[in-house]
């Protein structure tokens, strides 16, 4: 039996069924991501003023990934247009390109961006000990500037494995950290605006007393509200990219060629539907990129 309304519009909705179906799904997706993005708003507005982290992500890499996702959105719409113009070879080329772009995006995210954070460490200093670390925090300078920002965190990497062990070991009293540029030169006035090109880590290694640390963590979800919501949203977005790639992969199988030969319009509609999902994934990234990388 033929499935009804795969191509012809259904009289009551005026659309073929799959299109209504995907849009209903996208409406639920809007609610899903809307919930998480509004959680970001809540966490950010609820944070202690001036303490929301900035400049912890690599902007050029994020920009590159944004461009890759835009390119994939263009190529999936080209793949659909190729089917509409009845050119299956061209469809395969653009679908292949789309898959390639999606895979590169995911590779950069999971293979480079996330792991780069896992060995980066941040130590939040107790309020009553901030003065001891003023040389690395520069709060007097920030107060003079009147930006309403203050720094309570020292970030960097453990210079040796022993320092990491000292941090983990409850017996040890202190550990050392190789400072990030922002803590090495906290009074550098151009710390205010985000650095498009991340500044290299300094050679400055400082000793931090563990009793002065309110909370310390690698840049993993438990580090802060910022990283918690960053990993949640980019993680869920990554799952969507993966899901898109799986469906795209299915549409590269011989079954699609057979469907195309039997009913090209039905095949074009399938690609339109998966394309709608893919554009939505692009849409989420359009907002995720600035709120985590730039603001």
């Amino acid at each position, binding site marked *: 039996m*033929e499935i009804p309304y*795969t*191509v*012809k519009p259904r009289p009551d*909705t*005026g*659309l073929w069924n799959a*299109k*209504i179906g995907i*849009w*209903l799904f996208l*409406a639920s997706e*809007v*609610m899903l991501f*809307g919930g998480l*993005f*509004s959680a970001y*708003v*809540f966490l950010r*507005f*609820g944070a202690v003023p001036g303490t929301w982290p900035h400049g912890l992500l690599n*902007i050029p890499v994020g*920009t590159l990934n*944004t*461009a890759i996702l*835009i*390119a994939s*959105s*263009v190529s999936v*719409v*080209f793949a659909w*247009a190729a089917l*509409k*113009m*009845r*050119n*299956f070879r061209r469809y395969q080329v653009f679908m292949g390109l789309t898959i390639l772009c999606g895979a590169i995006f995911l590779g950069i995210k999971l293979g480079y961006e996330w792991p780069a954070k896992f060995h980066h460490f941040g130590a939040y200093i107790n309020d009553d000990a901030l003065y001891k670390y003023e040389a690395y925090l520069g709060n007097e300078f920030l107060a003079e500037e009147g*930006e*309403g920002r203050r720094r309570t965190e020292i970030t960097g990497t453990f210079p040796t494995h022993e320092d990491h062990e000292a941090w983990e070991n409850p017996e040890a009293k202190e550990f050392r950290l190789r400072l990030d540029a922002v803590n090495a030169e906290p009074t550098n006035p151009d710390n*205010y*605006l*985000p650095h*498009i090109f991340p500044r290299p880590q300094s050679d400055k290694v400082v000793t931090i007393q563990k009793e002065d640390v309110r909370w310390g963590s690698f840049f993993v979800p438990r580090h802060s509200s910022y990283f918690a919501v960053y990993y949640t949203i980019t993680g869920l977005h990554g799952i969507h990219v993966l899901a898109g790639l799986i469906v795209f992969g299915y549409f590269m199988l011989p079954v699609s060629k057979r469907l*195309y*030969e*039997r*009913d*090209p*319009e*039905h095949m074009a509609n399938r690609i339109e539907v998966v394309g*709608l999902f893919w*554009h939505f994934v*692009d*849409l989420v990234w*359009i*907002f995720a*990129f*600035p709120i985590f990388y*730039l*603001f």
Partner: protein
Amino acid sequence: MSDAHQPSDLSAAEKEHPVSVPHDAEHFHAHVKLYLGVGAALLLGTVVTVIVTQIHFGSEAMNIAVGLLVAAIKASLVILFFMHMKEEKGSIYQFMIPTTIIVAGLFLICALALVDHIKF
């Protein structure tokens, strides 16, 4: 039963490809150019969002507002052109508009954190 379009006389394109070409193939050629233009605009928008972070618009909130404005323009381009919302039927608007309103309400509720701030 097939819904595929079957024009009575074979065009050149049809002789080349075994399947039928819809009458509006020309229409899609025009669209391809439009999609390229939209893609270029999105790339430009991305570059603009990154560059405007280097301009101080008076306060952090203003910088965020400018960034969100660019993101909203980019999102509109994707929705209107790539997702064909411009030519879409009313039945989709019937549920997408209420969804948008509910999501906006969700953001509004969370923004109340500004009014009732956690005090330390």
